[in-house]
């Protein structure tokens, strides 16, 4: 087969470019150049130790300090002595290596919202992150995927990563979204259809008119959860919405990458058609993200003890606005703790300036600094035995937010906010 003429998906094109090939195909192993390497306070310490093992004990050396981002977002502000020690270890490394994009203290945001906002990722990039939700940047048309600490250390040392080119599954979303339906509902429905391993090792390519009509926040939420069906990456071809967003972040990319897209006859393992107009506001029941049902189809009343609005899935400015719109003039139920986590300091500041924070406070929400804390049961909102939370986060595994006998229900910010008011999981009035 003539490799040069084979039609390519957008993901194959990006990988080929970074591997110095004209063309790649699924199953092929390549070494690809990395544009940005990301890690956080949980994954950095192991990576630092492995970098020393690669270089020399006590003498780690990174390949390019300007292409590395380290964000201390999981257990910060330091949650306990062990995490304080762990953070100190990573801080010292970042300072010694003069890591250019090191985010600590008041600059900490949740990494996957922070990096796009800082203009550090853009279409056509290869981004490798020691965090599974690194796939979020696919919303901008980047190839981005999560790895572990040893892989990340290898990227730090060499600037390259080994990749097996993934086969692709295409989703075509069409139709008009109903009221209170957002990107989150589209991706929950997608995961429900194919299951939590439905796209294992593969790309999910998100296309169609209904994607074109989605804001960046909606797109980020969708690409963010690509990992929840096992995907290596989720990707949306850049368009006018992407270009407008990039102008706000200052990420400069060559004009050519802004028109990156899959060839019309590119090969897909499967193509799924999704009629968006049939999707109602969703809730994913414990303990897997694939257990999604329409809120209105719930068979019984599910009371909640906590509502969490935020995270790398739904902590964007738009998400806070959606929650505030629902909560305006209403009060959080007295038995519910409603926690709101703006994803970045800039989002927090904007929400403060625009009165969104005031609306949330008036309604009875607790506003937290940006942190991953409660999403992974780290700190700042842990559940006791038997407690239930509705959360705009991405995982509802056993014990994810605290006790192994607690429960997490996943939804969009409108459903989470309205449920906080009612005290049980409920769909807001249209």
């Amino acid at each position: 087969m003539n490799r040069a003429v084979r039609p390519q998906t957008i993901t194959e094109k990006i990988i080929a470019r970074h591997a110095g090939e004209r063309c790649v195909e699924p199953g092929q192993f390549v070494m690809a150049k990395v544009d940005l390497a990301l890690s956080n306070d949980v994954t950095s310490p192991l990576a630092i130790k492995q970098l020393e093992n690669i270089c020399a004990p006590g003498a780690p050396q990174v390949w390019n300090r300007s292409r590395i981002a380290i964000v201390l977002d999981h257990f910060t502000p330091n949650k306990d002595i062990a995490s304080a020690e762990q953070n100190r270890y990573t801080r010292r490394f970042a300072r010694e290596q003069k890591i250019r994009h090191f985010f600590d203290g008041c600059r900490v945001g949740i990494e996957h919202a922070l990096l796009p906002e800082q203009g550090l990722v853009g279409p056509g990039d290869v981004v490798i992150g020691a965090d599974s939700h690194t796939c979020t940047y696919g919303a901008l048309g980047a190839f981005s995927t999560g790895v572990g600490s040893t892989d990340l250390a290898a990227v730090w040392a060499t600037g390259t990563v080994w990749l097996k080119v993934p086969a692709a599954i295409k989703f075509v979303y069409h139709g008009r979204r109903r009221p209170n339906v957002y990107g989150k509902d589209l991706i929950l429905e997608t995961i429900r259809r194919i299951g939590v391993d439905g796209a294992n090792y593969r790309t999910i390519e998100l296309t169609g008119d209904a994607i074109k009509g989605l804001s960046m926040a909606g797109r980020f939420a969708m690409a963010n959860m690509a990992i929840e069906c096992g995907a290596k990456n989720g990707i949306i071809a850049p368009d006018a919405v992407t270009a407008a967003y990039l102008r706000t972040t200052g990420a400069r990319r060559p004009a050519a990458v802004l028109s990156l897209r899959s060839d019309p006859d590119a090969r897909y393992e499967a193509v799924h058609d999704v009629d968006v107009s049939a999707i109602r506001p969703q809730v994913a029941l414990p303990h897997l993200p694939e257990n999604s049902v329409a809120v209105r189809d719930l068979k019984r009343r599910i009371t909640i003890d906590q509502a969490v609005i935020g995270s790398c899935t739904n902590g964007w400015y738009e998400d806070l606005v959606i929650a505030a719109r629902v909560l305006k003039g209403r009060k959080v139920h007295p038995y519910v703790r409603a926690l709101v986590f703006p994803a970045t300091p800039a989002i927090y500041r904007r929400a403060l300036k625009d009165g969104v924070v005031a609306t949330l406070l008036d309604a009875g929400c607790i506003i937290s600094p940006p942190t991953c804390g409660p999403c992974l049961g780290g700190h700042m909102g842990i559940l006791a035995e038997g407690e239930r939370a509705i959360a705009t986060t991405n995982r509802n595994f056993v014990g994810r937010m605290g006790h192994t006998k607690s429960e997490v229900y996943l939804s969009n910010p409108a459903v989470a906010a309205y449920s906080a008011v009612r005290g049980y999981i409920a769909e807001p009035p249209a």
Partner: protein
Amino acid sequence: MRMKFEGTVFVAPDNVDTDVIIPAKYLNRSDPEYLGAHCMEPLDEHFSSRIAKGDVIVAGRNFGCGSSREHAPVAIKAAGISCVVAESFARIFYRNAINIGLPLVELPGAAKAFAAGDRILVDLDAGAVRNLTRREEHRIQPYPAFLQSIIAAGGLVPFIRARRPAA
């Protein structure tokens, strides 16, 4: 990496996620002994004391789904598990395990082929997994050539070291 493992089977279900393998509350440390002591706690509180060195986890589909935390394969290895056999693995977990030298074997039908407490022999060189209790043998696919070279080097760190120009 050693290529032959014999031990007792610990059975795990489908979709064992990384929060089950090592809950996030333990991610404030990264020393293997600490992680190993808390391995699989949500599934079996006494996992780490129950496991004898060399034992093998046999699981269903999508083992290791969820987070990218390398603490998960590190915890499994430190708990004394020699190898994980599953119907399928989540991709980040798969990379992490190969990179740190925890052997994984994909075996369709694994969950039905073993019961808790069975004795198992995994022979990667011979391409076979044996249930010594039931006296059954299952053939397994070899790793792709590229992964074999990482495994033969003893993991990703020695693999990279061998390819770096001398400083």
